[in-house]
């Protein structure tokens, strides 16, 4: 893409940074509301499966609209980017003010449409602003990785500090800021596109890798907040380990070997990290840090390398960039749609196991027989009022921890809490292992396609 810069008031570097912000915003939205889902669920009184569509709808529309938006943006990238930013901003306001779940869902779909226009056109614009198309692709991919990885953490902090609506209210003006980057830019030449097919192996591997990474982000924050009762802000801080590791590693390993080697190494790290999350030996955020230190670098290596592979030698960066966005977000949708029911089924199964184990602890305890039933009723009431989060059973023992039976009640309370923590932590095990399988499937695709592309 050739650009004519009619005004030097804004430097190319500033323009690139602002476009990076636009890309990061649009792609952060694929995961930014993850930590807000429990609040949204309560606000609109919908089921877990229904509320997950706040994420699914955005990713689905983004995946579907990315390639058409890229084709349109080839002709008028500046206009498409500007319109996309405005659509994204207005839709963000609609989401924040949504009086019903249906309006929120509609707003998310329109937001995704704007996001697709922004992301597709931004690659074309960056190609005109950077030294080379490779450099533009690198900036574009990195902005996307940062946005997607930082999304949950940013959403968590905002949800806790100001409520879930604030995520959208903050986005609305932020999305308008990159309009400054478009001032004085004119597309000088419409790109001629050869009839190139998208890079099959890179895009399919991106799909599998993104399905795995959606699990890493989505399941991890749900585990931290709903599973282990962390505040959204604290969970966001813990989940920040992943993007930080991604940034650090991309500086070190981002140039080693071919794109296929980097993608393979990245997918191995993602698979290993997710498998470790599937075998957590105890409940506690600190156990998620080592796996994140594998998944983060894996994220940076995989997305960067596969995007580079998909764009290499293609005459239209925007169109093939559009294909990578479509593949990535289709992968997120596949991941969410496959993993959510597995997780829900496993959670229900484990709840029954925990109930049995807790009942055994109570029945075999040495508190007076009549008290056992009262304790059981109080514990069940606590569980029923837990709103889908890890119940704190100690509240069922209030007033019972003193007196001659106090030590026995303390033992029962600790035993029940332990069984609940085990049940919830283990419920995430299969989904994480399945996600690890997605990463390994991506590795197979990279292996099969290795002979197709060597850079």
């Amino acid at each position, binding site marked *: 893409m050739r650009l004519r810069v009619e005004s030097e008031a804004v430097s190319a570097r500033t323009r690139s940074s602002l476009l990076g912000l636009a890309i990061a915003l649009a792609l952060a939205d694929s995961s930014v509301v993850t930590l807000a889902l429990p609040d949204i669920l309560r606000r609109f009184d919908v089921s877990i499966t229904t509320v997950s569509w706040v994420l699914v709808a955005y990713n689905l529309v983004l995946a579907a609209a990315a390639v058409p938006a890229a084709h349109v943006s080839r002709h008028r990238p500046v206009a498409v980017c500007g319109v996309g930013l405005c659509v994204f901003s207005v839709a963000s306001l609609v989401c924040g003010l949504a009086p019903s779940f249906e309006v929120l869902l509609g707003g998310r779909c329109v937001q995704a449409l704007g996001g697709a226009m922004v992301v597709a056109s931004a690659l074309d614009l960056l190609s005109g602003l950077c030294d080379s198309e490779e450099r533009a692709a690198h900036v574009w991919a990195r902005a996307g990785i940062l946005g997607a990885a930082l999304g949950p953490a940013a959403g968590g902090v905002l949800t806790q500090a100001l409520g879930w609506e604030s995520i959208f209210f903050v986005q609305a003006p932020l999305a308008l800021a990159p309009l400054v980057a478009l001032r004085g830019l004119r597309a000088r030449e419409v790109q001629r596109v050869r009839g190139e097919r998208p890079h099959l192996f890179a895009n399919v591997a991106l799909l599998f890798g993104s399905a795995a990474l959606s699990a890493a982000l989505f399941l991890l924050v749900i585990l931290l907040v709903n599973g282990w009762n962390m505040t959204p802000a604290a969970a966001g801080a813990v989940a920040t380990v992943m993007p930080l590791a991604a940034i650090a590693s991309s500086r070190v390993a981002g140039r080693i070997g071919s794109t296929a080697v980097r993608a393979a190494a990245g997918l191995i790290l993602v*698979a290993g990290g997710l498998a*470790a999350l599937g075998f957590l030996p105890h409940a506690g955020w600190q156990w998620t840090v080592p796996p994140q230190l594998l998944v983060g670098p894996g994220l940076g290596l995989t997305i960067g390398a596969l995007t580079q592979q998909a764009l290499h030698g293609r005459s239209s960066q925007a169109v093939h960039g559009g294909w990578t966005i479509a593949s990535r977000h289709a992968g997120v949708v596949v991941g969410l749609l496959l993993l959510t029911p597995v997780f829900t089924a496993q959670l229900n199964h484990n709840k029954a196991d925990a109930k049995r184990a807790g009942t055994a602890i109570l029945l075999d305890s040495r508190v007076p*027989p009549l008290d056992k039933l009262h304790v059981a009723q109080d514990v069940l009431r606590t569980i029923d009022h837990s709103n889908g989060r890890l119940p704190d059973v100690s509240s069922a023992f209030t007033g019972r921890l003193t007196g001659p039976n106090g030590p026995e009640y303390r033992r029962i309370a600790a035993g029940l809490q332990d069984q609940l923590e085990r049940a919830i932590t283990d419920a995430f095990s299969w989904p994480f292992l399945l996600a690890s399988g997605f990463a390994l499937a991506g590795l197979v695709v990279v292996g099969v396609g290795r002979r197709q592309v060597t850079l």
Partner: protein
Amino acid sequence: MSRSVALVTVAVAASLALVVAYVALGGTSYKPAAVADPCTPRSWRAPHGTAETLEQIVLSTADGAACKLHVSREDLVLALAGGDDLSHFARAHGLSQDDAENAIRDGIVRAVDDAEQAGAIGSGLADGLRTVAQHLPMSIVLAVLRGASGLLSG
């Protein structure tokens, strides 16, 4: 070794090391504890008073019935304590009403035998309880069990 091979080797080694370490630390067994097999006899504790004796008989009855029905003692206790009648429990587990009733009666007999052998109850009371178990209508048997221990009725 080329840098490409080194990168892949480091990725494989780091991944394997972490997974093996987590498994070694108990990653495959961090799940809710399995409940005891109801068919395996439990040791009879020395009870303190009538309430505890009756509680042990009720729990032992639950063990015996659960063993016959191939369910856990906890499932049976939770269902009956939750107010379900026996027919509801039987339907939920694909059993006939007769199977469920016979299992409860056999469970009581087993529990009374155990209590008698442990010296927790005398032979006269044991005979009486066995008669109750074998001849009274099931609704009354359940009411007696619930009322006797105070455990299931609240």
